[in-house]
């Protein structure tokens, strides 16, 4: 038996188990569990013994029986030690034990004798910790956003930890914030504006970018290298240095508070990146196909329309989704250019709501859910394309 590696294995796995339990306790406290202190020593002993038992049993008995048995026994012990009420809490604890045992199923005394086993075990646990850490850190704010939109300001001020949802409420009562946000705060209008602006930006950007990218990728003309370098440089200029001159110019031209003004700015700021992304893809299309089409008597317009576009649909989809995301999420220009509620985009509307300290937070969060949900759904559905767009274009952002 390798004492050193066994000891390290025991310590790390105990810590890991403790982390899992802590996360579960925090989440349960948010659902109304009354547990203010965790007896650290007892939990450490519990963790140590379950890890030790697991490797001692090894694979001498059936894995499922071992895991189920150990989880049940230790859940019971946990219950005896802590003795707090709700049953679902222990169900979670049981699941954690079960998951944990499943994670360490490969470890037995023989395994711990292998070379580099300390590093291997540490790496494995770092991965496990990483999964827990990143999931918690990323999903927690989204969870708070979603749940807050179903609560009321008064109840949250009284007990900021009570995130339990009352599912017995009627449908209308349960989604009250959303009804209010749509009715009193006119969010349907803002959704429409945001959609028009985003889709409009995508279409106009593509209309301008596809021909330009084709020319940069394929045709020979004076100033080509200069142009392709300047695309990259222009693309690095941030919105904040454009905002004051654009504000003054747009004020004098009467383009502020208009959707067309916003469309112009969004298109111009996304054009360089769109051209940059598209020309890279166009270059990868074999030139012979075009030459054949040229001989067949197609002109360049026909080549773009009949060959380039159909062949590069995935790249165009990537660019379109990426541009859509930028336009949908954009905030700075909509803050500067829009001060009439009639032309607000969703982002600007939420900012406007928050400007009034009287706005209850559930309405603010309902608005936030409304602006976040579409873009996340689009992302999940088209993940492949959007990730493609992100990697080729999102040096910016």
């Amino acid at each position, binding site marked *: 038996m390798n004492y050193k590696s066994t000891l390290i294995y025991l310590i790390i796995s105990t810590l890991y188990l403790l982390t899992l339990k802590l996360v579960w306790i925090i989440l349960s406290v948010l659902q109304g569990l009354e547990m203010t202190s965790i007896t650290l020593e007892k939990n450490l002993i519990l963790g140590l013994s379950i890890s030790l038992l697991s490797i001692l049993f090894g694979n001498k008995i059936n894995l499922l029986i071992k895991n189920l048995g150990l989880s049940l026994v230790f859940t019971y012990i946990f219950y005896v030690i802590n003795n707090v009420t709700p049953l679902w809490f222990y169900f979670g604890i049981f699941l954690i034990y079960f998951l944990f045992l499943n994670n360490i199923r490969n470890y037995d005394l023989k395994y711990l004798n292998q070379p580099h086993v300390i590093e291997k075990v540490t790496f494995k646990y770092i991965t496990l910790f*990483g999964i827990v850490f*990143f999931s918690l850190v990323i999903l927690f704010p989204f969870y708070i956003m979603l749940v807050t939109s179903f609560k009321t300001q008064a109840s949250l001020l009284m007990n900021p930890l009570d995130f339990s949802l009352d599912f017995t409420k009627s449908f209308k009562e349960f989604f009250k914030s959303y009804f209010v946000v749509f009715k009193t705060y006119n969010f349907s209008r803002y959704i429409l504006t945001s959609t028009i602006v985003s889709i409009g930006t995508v279409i106009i950007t593509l209309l301008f970018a596809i021909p330009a990218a084709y020319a940069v990728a394929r045709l020979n003309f004076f100033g080509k290298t200069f142009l392709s370098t300047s695309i990259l440089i222009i693309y690095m*200029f941030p919105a904040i240095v454009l905002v004051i001159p654009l504000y003054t110019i747009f004020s004098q031209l009467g383009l502020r508070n208009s959707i067309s003004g916003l469309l112009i700015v969004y298109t111009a700021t996304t054009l360089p990146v769109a051209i940059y992304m598209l020309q890279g893809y166009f270059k990868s299309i074999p030139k012979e196909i075009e030459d054949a089409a040229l001989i067949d008597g197609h002109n360049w317009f026909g080549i773009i329309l009949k060959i380039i576009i159909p062949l590069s649909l995935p790249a165009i989809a990537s660019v379109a989704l990426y541009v859509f995301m930028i336009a949908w999420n954009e905030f700075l220009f909509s803050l500067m250019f829009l001060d009439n509620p009639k032309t607000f985009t969703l982002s600007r509307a939420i900012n406007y709501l928050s400007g009034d300290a009287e706005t209850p937070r559930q309405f603010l969060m309902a608005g936030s859910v409304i602006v976040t949900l579409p873009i996340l759904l689009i992302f999940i559905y088209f993940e492949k394309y959007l990730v493609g767009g992100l990697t080729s274009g999102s040096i910016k952002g």
Partner: protein
Amino acid sequence: MADKLSKIEKRTAYALILPAILLVFSIILFPIFANIWISFKEVELKDIRIPEPRAKKIIKSIPEDQTKLKIVYKLRNSSLLENITDVKLKDKLPANIEFVNIDPRCNFKSRTLSCSFGEWKAKYRENLEFIIYNVNGNLIDKKSLKSKKPKLSGKADNILLTTNFTLNNFKKVFFKNDFKDLLLTTFYFTFFGTLGAIIFGVLAAQLVNQKFSGRTFMRSILLFPYVGPVVALAYTWTLLLDPNSGTLNALLIKFQILDQPINLLGQKYLTFQFLGIDLKLRLALTTVIFFEIWRYFPLAFLFVLARLQAIPKDLYEASDVDGAGPLNKFFNITLPQITAIISILFMIRFIWNFNKFEDIFLLTGGASGTRTLPINVYEQGFAISNIGMGSAVSMVIVLILIIFMILYFKLIGKRANEL
């Protein structure tokens, strides 16, 4: 023939590119030059409106004499600050109308009333009144009288187009604006934000590069903070960190880690003791940096993961044969393979974070020691309404940016295209 073809090719190329160039030029390049221009002028937000002469035409009946009507032109200078010179008014009236009295500045010829007023001072107002009657004694049709609007013209200086320049804005930026503090805060924010995002990005990429169940799910959610709209995420964080009713503070107090709630976004310094030394931490700035890391590590993650997955598997297999452990593998195989991408990422993200505005603006508005240069542009330009000052600050940003870009292109510009 070949010559002709290449000529056509050139012409096509220009035709294809021109629309894009024109748009980018007018919305991105032209404003940058306009910025230089404005930064040397003393312009305030209220000066932006071009002064123009205005007139409102009102028709009044005269009760004693139904055949006559009174026309009142309510004249004013729209600007409270600027004079307008050479103001002229023109108004076309229906046929057969004569004036009872006429102002000496005006004359009436071939149905057109034309007046020239000379200069209108700022805030100028006047009611110009005429009495008119119909030559053939009929009643005057009020509607046709009202239907035409008077035309006004005048010359006014557009403050943006005058040529008085001054260095005052830049003097103020460098000497009266806590410039050192501003620059330092911006650099803290940028440096630690970028570094943190890359460290967490590498960790996350290393994580997702392992085999475990739920790996694709993990990869999706790791990108959420970047994909979500900044407004929604920033407000969620503000609620989460709120000192009075925020979840985080409530949790920390409930588990007796803190006695007092801390205002993570509203407190400038946090003093604490470490090894007997009193240390001061820029608390609000640190929180904002953490938000920045949270929101942008997905990008570093994405790039590093793509690189990691391109590392040939046989490298690892060979090292397995040699009996190398995971730590050894990471330092000797993985790390050398990703240093290039990390340095490129660092430069690019550094440039972008340097210009970050929304995140800080939404979280703290630049208060409690989080005022960076981009925030200052907004404050000067729109909160204090001094457009010229705002422009000057943004010029400073542009200059620093140009230095960064030169560095970037010198160091890794060519390799960036290989990405």
